[in-house]
């Protein structure tokens, strides 16, 4: 599903590469934790999958497509198959829960009938039934992140990328977020989650890829956050 082959990324005006000859394979339906200290290249990894950045060398295949050969014109279509969740939720403050989720479908031109059908379904999936008409500032952090996950998942993407989704959320609430991610993963969606949260990684017992200074230093199935921490 995601295939990195010897990928190096150096940002302009920087000597040290953000990713240094990284090769990794993620299969369909897998759940992968991306761990490592800040600046180790986790976010760069995710941005490369979205083709928000281009690698300096190496090849990236996502959903069977070679990103280097994907024209700019087709990048939006790639992104429709990838859902994204961030630490800062990125909700629209002037739209309620339902409208925030529906927005993702409206802007890719889905018909209204379809939107009316699937949005309530996905709101229920993330556990926000009955709160569809709340505004984001009336929700807790955990609930806001659930809205963001609903938005990321409403178009049934093949891949869900989560960049520290529990970074702004207390540990008890984080467990609920992880349950939703797990539920999404069980529908067959590949999940890649960058995180600092050792407790979560240890409790989930999923594949762990550890980055340090842009290099993969560990790739373990059913791993833990790491002995060093």
């Amino acid at each position, binding site marked *: 599903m995601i295939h990195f082959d010897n990928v190096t990324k150096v940002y302009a005006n920087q000597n040290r590469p953000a990713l240094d000859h990284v090769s990794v394979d993620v299969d369909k339906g897998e759940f992968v934790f991306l761990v490592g200290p800040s600046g180790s290249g986790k976010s760069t990894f995710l941005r490369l999958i979205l083709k928000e950045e281009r690698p300096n060398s190496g090849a990236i295949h996502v959903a069977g497509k070679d990103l280097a050969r994907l024209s700019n014109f087709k990048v939006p279509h790639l*992104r429709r198959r990838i859902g994204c969740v961030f630490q800062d939720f990125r909700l629209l403050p002037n739209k309620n829960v339902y409208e925030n989720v529906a927005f993702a479908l409206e802007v890719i031109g889905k018909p209204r009938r379809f939107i009316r059908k699937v949005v309530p379904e996905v709101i229920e999936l993330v556990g926000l039934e009955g709160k569809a008409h709340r505004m984001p500032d009336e929700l807790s952090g955990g609930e806001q992140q659930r809205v963001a996950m609903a*938005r990321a998942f409403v178009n049934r993407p093949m891949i869900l990328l989560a960049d520290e989704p529990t970074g702004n959320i207390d540990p008890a609430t984080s467990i609920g977020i992880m349950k939703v991610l797990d539920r999404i993963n069980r529908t067959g969606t590949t999940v890649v989650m960058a995180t600092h949260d050792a407790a979560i990684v240890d409790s989930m017992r999923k594949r762990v890829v550890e980055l340090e200074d842009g290099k993969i230093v560990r790739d373990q199935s059913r791993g833990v956050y790491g002995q060093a921490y």
Partner: protein
Amino acid sequence: MRANFIFSEVWIGLRRNLTMTIAVIITVAVGMAMLGVGLMINSQVGLMKGFWNDKVEVSVFLCKKGTAMPACNGKAITPAQTKALEAHIKGTQGVKQVFFENETTAYENFKQSFSSNKALVDATKVEDLPQSFRIALKDPDNYESVIQAVTGQPGVAQVMDQKQLIAPFFSMLDKLAIAALTVAIILVLAAALLIGNTVRLSAFNRRRETGIMRLVGASNLYIQLPFVMEGVIAGLVGGVFAAVILIVAKVFLFDQIVGFFGGATALLGWNDVAQTITITMIIGVVICILASFVTLRRYLRV
């Protein structure tokens, strides 16, 4: 594509930048009106030149007894001189036709021209008016050589070309047209910059939305269209105001000027005005679209 989604986005964008939108509308309106006025003056000058060129003729006034002109020496032209002069004029290059106007016809024309000034007409007798040859020219713009050929011939009191009288008026109109077009170009430039700025503000105001649109895979067109539409709508509204200004200019400016100098056949038709309005509208909208796209390329990377 969902039209009402785009229109609600456009409406929100226009309202958020109301002052900038008004500035764009005013600039586009004045700029396009200037452009239109320039174009209309141009076609008006064309029409009036055509009208005048049909009429313009060189008048050769002949000496009569007691004429004050130094060329006559106070003597009247003899019939032999008249014949010779007519032959000379007919032989001159560039002459199309020659008519002889005697005192009686001259007096009739004079009475007609000054019918409003009764005292002057009453004070003037038939004998006061000179005889003259009226020369129609092959090329109305090339009157100098004919004047030179006739001036100084025996019995000629004075040679006059109506063109000399109206030429300054035409050159003034030409200058006005150039001035209007220059102002138009400057204003169009200002409008383009203003639109660019408006789009930039809009893009900044809506960076959250556009960021999410990018993320969920909205197409570039879908993301950019609301911004471009904002520019187009501002341009169109400005164009409508410009159209109103042009219609007012036709009724209260052009028709009046032509009434003084041209006569009814040189009147600028509504067809010409409609054409000018169409041209200015198209130019205005195209400039808005171009300015929006250029700015979006810089401030809305996809």
